[in-house]
């Protein structure tokens, strides 16, 4: 109940697709989604493996609530060892693909090995096959999805695929489903490309059974009302996540010009007001909002580019509506690179979806390249004649396309900030943790965010902890360790249930546990979910330690630790990681070197993973 109790295991080297029963003991301990996928990854992959070798595995996972009537239940996640970071990767996506995979009858899809030729995986309930994708190799995400649907005469089919970026190993290539939703971070698309797997196409007709249907309906109805009435839901529906750009601007936490500044002069030209204004050509950027499967929030944005804009002026193929700006895309293509041209930002977003790349990592990598260029360490000859100065909209649009197509200077940007800055002799300019680029929050202003970035198991990430409330009450490192740790555990549980994190603005863990309890075997409480979250966080940490990461990787770039914020609420402050990190390790029950102790691991039923004599 809740779970389909079935795993599909695909060995691309052998060309086999076999189903096996879900390990229900693990389901009881790790819930599903992120947690269960992590448990299976640990069981199938040596953490020391080269992420782009056939020995790495790619696990697609739904949660027990995926595909049910619970709001936002279309989620799935992809767990693997990430090429960008060398750490565990866990990328979560919305759209409709997750629910469809569940309707095929599977909780998890484990992909191993490497196919000799390009293939795509076709799943139609129990009918599973590997299909030739030679003609699709080199195609965009959009063309791939269209072709596969036409080939199987099924508009209802849901497709998750990679573009050229994934095929060519762009370190932050993502997996795109439903044309503009993505398992975005850490390079999961590059892992898929390394396996010669172009796409997974799913068409399912099975439902999802729940434990107590009548109670389930009652609980879902009650929780939906709570969500519906909550002010945060209304705000997300009305403005999307983009409204945070004005908040971060006022607060002084909006990283600008590769984090040299924390406020951006051009913010009024890319904010929620700007996207609904009619420009001098009579064009309005934002068309409507859009919901993922079963979502009653509908934060997604659908936009279109002014046909007169230089990026598309003779390119009618880009005049259609597609995914519009959200906070992170607006940050990464806007302040991060100093660009305030709304249509250029929207075009860059199209490139990310069409070619399959993580917008945050791309934008922050371009920002690093711009700083290197302004310092004279990269020359105009190297950038294919493009003036890579901060603020140049053409540099943004051209480089987004070149990187997606793996052409010219785009091949350098494909390295990600860390490798790029190392190559050009200034590793300090890479705004990353564990090789993954920061999201749009500056950790001198949001100190708990800095701690969450530094300790993130997948590297810098704003979605695996939630310290916003305490961060905006006090611009110091004081009291941030506890909420950081607790929210990391709660979010690990939410990600594992198969629903969207944005429900957490209205629902607490009790609300989610009530729905899991009505759907799934066993008795589920907030406490049990929190404990599962803590188990999952520690297992991810153990994977990373075995992969060779250490406490030295729980750090931030010198810019955030030594260069004070130049303006805003945190003017004059640096991130107080030195204060927060020891408190955090203690809060977690880890040693001073960030290693989970045997006692902790026994309490979490992770005794199989005890590291003897942790220093």
């Amino acid at each position: 109940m809740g779970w389909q109790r079935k795993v599909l295991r695909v060995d691309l080297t052998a060309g086999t697709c076999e189903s096996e029963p879900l390990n229900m003991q693990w389901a009881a301990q790790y819930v599903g989604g992120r947690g269960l996928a992590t448990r299976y990854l640990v069981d199938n992959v040596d953490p020391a493996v080269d992420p782009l070798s056939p020995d790495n595995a790619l696990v697609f996972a739904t949660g027990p609530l995926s595909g049910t009537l619970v709001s936002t239940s279309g989620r799935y996640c992809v767990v693997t060892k990430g090429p960008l970071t060398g750490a565990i990767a866990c990328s979560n996506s919305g759209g409709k693909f997750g629910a469809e995979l569940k309707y095929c009858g599977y909780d998890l899809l484990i992909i191993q090995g490497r196919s000799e030729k390009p293939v795509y995986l076709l799943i139609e309930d129990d009918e599973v096959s590997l299909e030739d994708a030679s003609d699709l190799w080199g195609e965009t995400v959009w063309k791939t999805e269209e072709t596969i649907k036409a080939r199987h005469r099924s508009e209802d089919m849901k497709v998750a695929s990679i573009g050229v970026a994934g095929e060519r190993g762009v370190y932050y290539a993502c997996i795109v489903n439903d044309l503009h939703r993505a398992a975005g971070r850490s390079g999961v698309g590059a892992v898929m490309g390394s396996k010669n797997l172009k796409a997974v196409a799913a068409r399912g007709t099975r439902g999802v059974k729940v434990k107590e249907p009548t109670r389930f309906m009652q609980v879902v109805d009650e929780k939906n009302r709570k969500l519906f009435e909550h002010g945060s839901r209304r705000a997300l529906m009305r403005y999307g996540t983009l409204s945070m750009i004005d908040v971060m601007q006022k607060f002084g936490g909006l990283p600008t010009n590769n984090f040299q500044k924390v406020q951006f002069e051009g913010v009024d030209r890319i904010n929620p007001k700007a996207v609904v204004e009619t420009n001098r050509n009579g064009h309005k950027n934002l068309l409507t909002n859009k919901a993922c499967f079963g979502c009653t929030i509908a934060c997604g944005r659908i936009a279109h580019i002014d046909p007169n804009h230089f990026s598309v002026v003779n390119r009618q193929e880009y005049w259609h509506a597609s995914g519009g700006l959200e906070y992170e895309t607006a940050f990464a293509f806007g302040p991060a690179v100093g660009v305030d041209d709304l249509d250029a930002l929207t075009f860059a977003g199209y490139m990310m979806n069409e070619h399959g790349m993580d917008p945050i990592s791309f934008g922050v990598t371009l920002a690093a390249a711009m700083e290197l260029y302004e310092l004279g360490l990269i020359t105009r000859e190297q950038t294919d004649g493009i003036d890579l100065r901060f603020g140049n909209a053409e540099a943004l649009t051209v480089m987004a396309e070149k990187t997606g197509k793996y052409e010219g200077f785009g091949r350098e940007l494909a390295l990600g900030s860390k490798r790029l800055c190392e190559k050009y002799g200034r590793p300090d300019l890479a705004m990353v943790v564990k090789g993954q680029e920061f999201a749009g929050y500056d950790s001198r202003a949001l100190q708990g965010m800095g701690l969450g970035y530094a300790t993130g198991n997948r590297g810098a990430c704003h979605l695996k902890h939630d310290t916003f409330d305490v961060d905006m009450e006090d611009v110091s490192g004081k009291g941030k360790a506890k909420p950081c740790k607790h929210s990391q555990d709660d979010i690990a549980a939410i990600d594992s249930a198969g629903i969207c994190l944005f429900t957490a603005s209205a629902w607490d863990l009790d609300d989610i546990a009530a729905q899991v309890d009505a759907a799934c075997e066993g008795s589920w409480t907030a406490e049990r979910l929190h404990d599962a979250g803590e188990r999952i966080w520690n297992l991810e940490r153990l994977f990373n330690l075995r992969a060779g990461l250490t406490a030295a990787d729980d750090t931030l770039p010198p810019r955030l630790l030594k260069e004070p914020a130049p303006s805003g609420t945190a003017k004059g402050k640096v991130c107080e990681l030195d204060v927060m990190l020891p408190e955090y390790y203690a809060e977690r029950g880890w040693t001073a070197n960030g290693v989970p102790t045997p006692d902790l691991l026994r309490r979490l039923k992770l005794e199989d993973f005890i590291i003897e004599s942790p220093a």
Partner: protein
Amino acid sequence: MKVQLDLAGELEGALDEALEAAYPLETGATLEDLVASLPFASRVALTSVNGELVPPAERAGRTLSDGDEVMLLPPVKGG
């Protein structure tokens, strides 16, 4: 007395411009009084006075003066 409000995000436009520029308060009013008087009080997460953050617990003890600049921001969630 009057204070100058600065609203952002979903709170922007919640008051008409003239009121936002010069919001009337009784002399001796606190930041808590100000927030409580707003029709969107439950959506105010962050408050600062003249650039200095004031946590919710300290709003009642923060007396406002004529001409103070008060920034009010809504709750933030990742995205």
